[in-house]
């Protein structure tokens, strides 16, 4: 009986064994097939076949190619067929594999169950509990140390102060303000560096050109600094005045005139070629540029009578490609304002031509910076720092900021910066510890060392097609652009955005600021006044006309010219108090120059001198 029973088990076992082996082999083969199929399907994904896509592209080019069309259809059909076949194969293979494995497992389990009935002969009792425990302790300790080691190593490798970074990136303005208060107030110092350097130049040119009644004491450097300062402020030598802050240190500027009746208009002279560039002055010379698609000219006017002292045309340069730059009607071919240092006048035109003329209109040097890829036309005005000319050349490919030697036109430094095309002009400000060139362009406000061109800092608080230049006063920088925001930045070693707003954003006029107030004008004819430090809006005034010209802050008054040529003069105060409104009798988009108690204003056709 017993033996018979065993027999059955044995027979069964052999049978199960065979079944198990068969099923095992079967599963193995199937699994290999499935894997192969899977890999094949992965590699040649028929759903997104490149061949078909290229064929379709070709068909798009030659839409009437019937043969190609048929080819695509057949290929598409084939690939789909192949895809579905492999999908079916994998699916079926999966089921078969499962069945095979299940059979193998069941048979193996049966064998197992039967085998278990036979007693196992126990081996020697050789387990030493203590030794085992000791070993375990060691290995656990080793494992623990490994985990600690590996995680510390990885942590060390990838540590990047994430939290700190996020906190900084998300810091609200209030926190920044607290930090701000700790900074020493050292931004009231005048532009010592700049002025210092100018003294040297001053000594040479005072006798010759400047006759504006200011005594110049050459011996004493200290006084010379002061003089050169007033000198350069009196000489409205750059776009929006010294540094480009939109502030002129003039007094006794007329507040009433009428261009249509000639009231308080000292002279007006027709400018041969039109342009959006604004006048600059040195001594009794007023410089202006004008251009058409083919001609580019620099003019020098006599400030006393408006006579054109000289006109110099920029000849075609050899390296200049004859191509006419693409500009919009509003920007024109001569949007950038020239700059003068009393030795020469430096101009740039929309095709990248730069020319330096001496005070008599003779060419000093000339070069072409390459036709800028700028869809509205180059508009950024030149700036002067010591003996170099700063050019913000934000074009489509390799936008850069450059410093050119005023004497020779050689490039002293050139910093390529990853920004989009912009139309704003740089400003040069002494921020206390250093002199900085500050530029605005999508995506950031950036500052550069004027000596080396090194980037000092940048803040991404501006975007879009940046037209307005920044304003600066008392350690505060204000940047604005349409569709972006108005940001007030406290300068210092680590500039911080103090406040920002997005009401009434400007796309063309630049803002202007003094210690207390910030004035913003927009092209749709709205002007706002903010508290410069806190950002509270004091008032908004809607003018009836659009404004392209930038406001100027002169003698506690804001001069704001609208496009019809109406000059709105109002108090630079926390309430809007209009002083007067004066007609020019001509449309204008230019920013006026203030010099010697006179206003020089470029209209659509004429240059006006306004004074008593």
């Amino acid at each position, binding site marked *: 009986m017993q033996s018979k029973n065993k027999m059955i088990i044995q027979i069964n076992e052999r049978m199960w064994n065979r079944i198990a082996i068969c099923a095992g082999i079967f599963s193995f083969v199937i699994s290999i097939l499935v894997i192969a199929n899977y890999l094949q399907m992965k590699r040649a994904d028929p759903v997104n076949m490149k061949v078909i896509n290229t064929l379709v592209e070709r068909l798009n080019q030659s839409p009437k190619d019937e043969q190609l*069309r048929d080819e695509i*259809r057949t290929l*598409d059909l084939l690939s789909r067929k192949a895809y579905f076949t492999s999908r079916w194969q994998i699916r079926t293979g999966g089921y078969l594999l499962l069945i095979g494995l299940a059979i193998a497992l069941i048979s193996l389990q049966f064998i197992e169950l039967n085998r278990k009935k036979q007693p196992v002969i126990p081996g020697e009792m050789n387990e030493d509990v203590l030794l085992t425990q000791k070993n375990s302790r060691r290995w656990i300790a080793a494992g623990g140390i490994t985990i600690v080691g590996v995680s510390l190593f990885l942590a060390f490798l990838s540590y990047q102060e994430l939290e700190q970074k996020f906190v900084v990136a998300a810091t609200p303005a209030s926190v920044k303000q607290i930090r701000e208060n700790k900074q020493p107030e050292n931004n009231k110092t005048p532009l010592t560096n700049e002025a210092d350097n100018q003294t040297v130049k001053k000594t040479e040119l005072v006798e010759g050109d400047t006759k504006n009644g200011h005594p110049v004491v050459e011996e004493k450097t200290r006084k010379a600094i002061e003089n050169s300062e007033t000198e350069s402020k009196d000489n409205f030598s750059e776009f929006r005045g010294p540094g480009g802050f939109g502030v002129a240190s003039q007094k006794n500027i007329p507040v009433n005139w009428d261009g249509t009746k000639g009231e308080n208009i000292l002279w007006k002279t027709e400018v041969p070629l039109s342009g959006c560039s604004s006048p600059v002055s040195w001594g009794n010379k007023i410089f202006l540029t004008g251009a058409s698609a083919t001609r580019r000219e620099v003019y020098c006017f006599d400030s006393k009578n408006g006579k054109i002292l000289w006109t110099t045309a920029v000849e075609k340069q050899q390296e200049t490609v004859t191509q006419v730059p693409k500009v919009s009607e509003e920007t024109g071919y001569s949007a950038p304002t020239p700059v003068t240092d009393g030795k020469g006048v430096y101009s740039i035109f929309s095709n990248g031509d730069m020319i330096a003329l001496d005070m008599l209109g003779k060419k000093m040097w000339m070069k072409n910076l390459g036709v800028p890829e700028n869809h509205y036309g180059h508009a950024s005005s030149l700036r002067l720092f010591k003996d170099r000319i700063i050019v913000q050349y934000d074009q489509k490919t390799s936008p850069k900021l450059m410093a050119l030697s005023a004497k020779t036109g050689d490039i002293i430094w050139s910093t390529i910066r990853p920004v989009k095309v912009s139309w704003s002009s740089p400003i040069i400000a002494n921020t206390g510890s250093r002199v900085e060139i500050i530029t605005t362009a999508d995506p950031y406000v950036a500052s550069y060392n004027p000596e080396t061109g090194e980037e000092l800092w940048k803040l991404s608080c501006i975007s879009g097609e940046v037209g307005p230049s920044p304003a600066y006063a008392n350690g505060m920088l204000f940047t604005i652009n349409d569709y972006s925001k108005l940001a007030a930045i406290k300068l210092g070693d680590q500039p911080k955005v103090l406040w920002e707003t997005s009401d009434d954003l400007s796309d063309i006029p630049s803002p202007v600021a003094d210690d207390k107030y910030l004035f913003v004008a927009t092209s749709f004819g709205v002007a706002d006044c903010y508290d410069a430090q806190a950002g509270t809006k004091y008032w908004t005034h809607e003018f009836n006309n659009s404004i392209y010209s930038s406001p100027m802050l002169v003698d506690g008054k804001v001069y704001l010219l609208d496009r019809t040529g109406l000059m709105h003069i109002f108090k630079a105060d926390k309430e809007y108090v209009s002083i007067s409104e004066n007609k020019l009798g001509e449309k204008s988009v230019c920013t006026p120059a203030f010099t010697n108690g006179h206003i020089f204003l470029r209209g659509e056709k004429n240059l006006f001198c306004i004074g008593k």
Partner: protein
Amino acid sequence: MNTTLRAGVVIGLCGVGTLLAKRTLNGKTVWQLDPSKCVQCGRCATSCVLTSSAVKCVHVYEICGYCDLCGGYLKPEVKDLNTAAENQLCPTSAIRRKFVEEPFFQYDIDEKLCIGCGKCVKGCGAFGNGSLQLQVRHNICVNCNQCSIAINCPADAFRRVPENNSNLLKGFTK
């Protein structure tokens, strides 16, 4: 000693259970995609644990224009408006085009073929009424504890919704 511990564990478990049960919604929750957040990145097709994703394109007929020139069905710039392979935008030709009457066509989704890539959804949104929208199909979805598409969704469009309100289609009225 053990009995006390046991009693403690029982009380603890029951406590947690009742605490959570208070917060529970009666019924169950399922994963769903919010079409208004969807950006058609194509991850629904690749991230689902199922090889043919449980996310499918769903046609809200009510807001369809039945156009001949369908931005969701046809590739841009096709010359003939027909069902030929080279004209179809869908990589798996899961959209069926059916003539109703001049000039209207009905578009149906063959869910067996749809892989949920959202290509047609993008086309329909850009050129049409936006009647093609992606949705999780709950007869296919295995309702994973953590949806693996949700983990990969860049638009944060996946969320758990109560089962009885699991349809987030836009413009759908029933």
